[in-house]
């Protein structure tokens, strides 16, 4: 549960940013989607805020600048990891397709065995 700021019960910007970095570190997609909704709500609410509240928000924004830089770097690292994992998946999918029916690794043997079983139907 995030602490609320003085701006009408909304969470503090800094806490939002820190929580987003943490959630992204542990790949908590559910939490990140909640935070996205929270940011949308905050964004909508800000249109009706008075000058005093907007000044408080400006102060919070300055306070959160460093954590935002951390969040940006974590996001960047995640994108790099996602690229690596996507390429790995393509590589593995390609290897399976190429070697299907052969007797290579355990995984490939499983594929070969399943096809044979289907052909004979007596195992």
């Amino acid at each position, binding site marked *: 549960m995030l602490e609320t700021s003085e701006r009408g019960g909304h969470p503090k910007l800094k806490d939002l940013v820190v929580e987003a970095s943490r959630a*992204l570190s542990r790949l908590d*997609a559910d939490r990140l989607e909640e935070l996205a909704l929270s*940011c949308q709500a905050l964004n909508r609410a800000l249109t009706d805020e008075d000058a005093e509240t907007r000044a408080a928000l400006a102060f919070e924004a300055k306070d959160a600048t460093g954590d935002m830089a951390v969040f940006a770097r974590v996001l960047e690292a995640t994108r790099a990891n996602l690229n690596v994992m996507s390429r790995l998946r393509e590589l593995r999918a390609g290897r399976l397709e190429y070697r299907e029916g052969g007797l290579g690794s355990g995984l490939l043997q499983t594929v070969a065995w399943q096809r044979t079983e289907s052909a004979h139907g007596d195992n």
Partner: protein
Amino acid sequence: MGTINSALSIMSQALDADQQALNVVANNVANANTPGYTRETPDWQENQPITINGVSYGQGVTETGATSERDRVLESRLDQQQQLAAASGTRLTALDTLQALFTPASGSSSSTAGDIGSDITSFFNSFSSLEANPTDNALRQSVLSTAGTLAGDISNAAASLNSQRSALDQEAAGTTSQVNALTGAIAQLNQQIQTTSPDADAGTLEDQRQEDLSQLSQLIGINQITTKNNGLEITTTSGQLLVSEGTSYQMTTGMVNGVTDFFVNNRDITADLATGGGSLGGYLTARDTDIPGALSSLDQLAYSISTSVNKQNNAGTDYDGVEGNVANPANAALNIFSEPTAVAGSAASMSVVMTDPNQIAAAGAGDGTGDNSNAVAMYKLSSQLIVNGETPINYYSNFVTTLGATVSSVQTENTAQNASVTQLQTQNNALSGVNLNDEASSMTTLERSYQAASQVFTMLNNIMASALNLGDQTTVS
């Protein structure tokens, strides 16, 4: 062949195979908490069917062994991120210690090395006080006292930096034996893997090798190159060979210019190791870049203040009517600080050599002892660009600010790299522990997390940009 007997035989073989597969699963469960253990999956192989009169009769299935669910590309990426995280973590620890010398810790009013910024201000302000009453002995004593505090704090800070550098040097040298032990172990494992399991995953042996690689990645930056028969070559990030299949090349150390340098095959690889990563990279970056940079700034500050103040004092007349000697600063009669001969080392040797407050030349050259024109000139040094084109206080302030920015930047890098390591470990665990469907699910989680985080980032970024620019529309379309 198609008899009840053959059917029973097939079933019996299937049960045997299942039993062996259960043994593999039991082994996985038993090793669930073993560091570095990679989950194994049983390999199944169909027995050769027998064909009689054109009809094939199946012969069941045999369990032929187990294969570890590993992916070397992912493990390699994980090792690489660990190297970066270890380097930035080690450097950050060193930088925190360095910063504490100049910045008061939270809740404290003074830093480890005193407050050099306030010392500079107090020292020059003491001349401002002397202007009003240039013959006052207490005010003259105050000038020497504030000079002593400034010189003491600067020289103490330099001594602390040198001492921290020595400590880092020892820490760095201490990793050598760990690196050598690990590269030696990896070379032995390479030999065993290449001999006993040249064409397949070597299971436990590869787990051990991966564990050693992971530990080595915490220490130094490495590249891994797979060779024939499941062998492995390891180099530093700049390509210096450390392990070539069954042979390891030991790292040695030697003192060069007062610090430890690192060698492999008589080649000095210190600079490569500093940029390569791992804790050794962090130690060396702090030892060879961060601390020398801070020392250099302090040296410049000490040199400029000492030479400028000495020169100005020698341009005046002291309380006893003695005039200074601007032409020969090293032997000038009215030096307040010890006169440095070079910038390097000025901070460590900064001290007050003047003991008699009467020698403070408040009066201008040729003026009476009641004159204050040189005291005014001394005070004005505080607002003149005497330190590398900056005033003394601005120079010091910029130095502290730059140091803080460096700490903040390394902190950001370290947090991001640790997050990346956590993510990759999650992915690696998903790969090692489950089937392809669950692996795909894990991948989907990664994609979802990235997309949601991107949305959060975009919205927060826009909200913050608008908030910092009051009066503009805040909502994100």
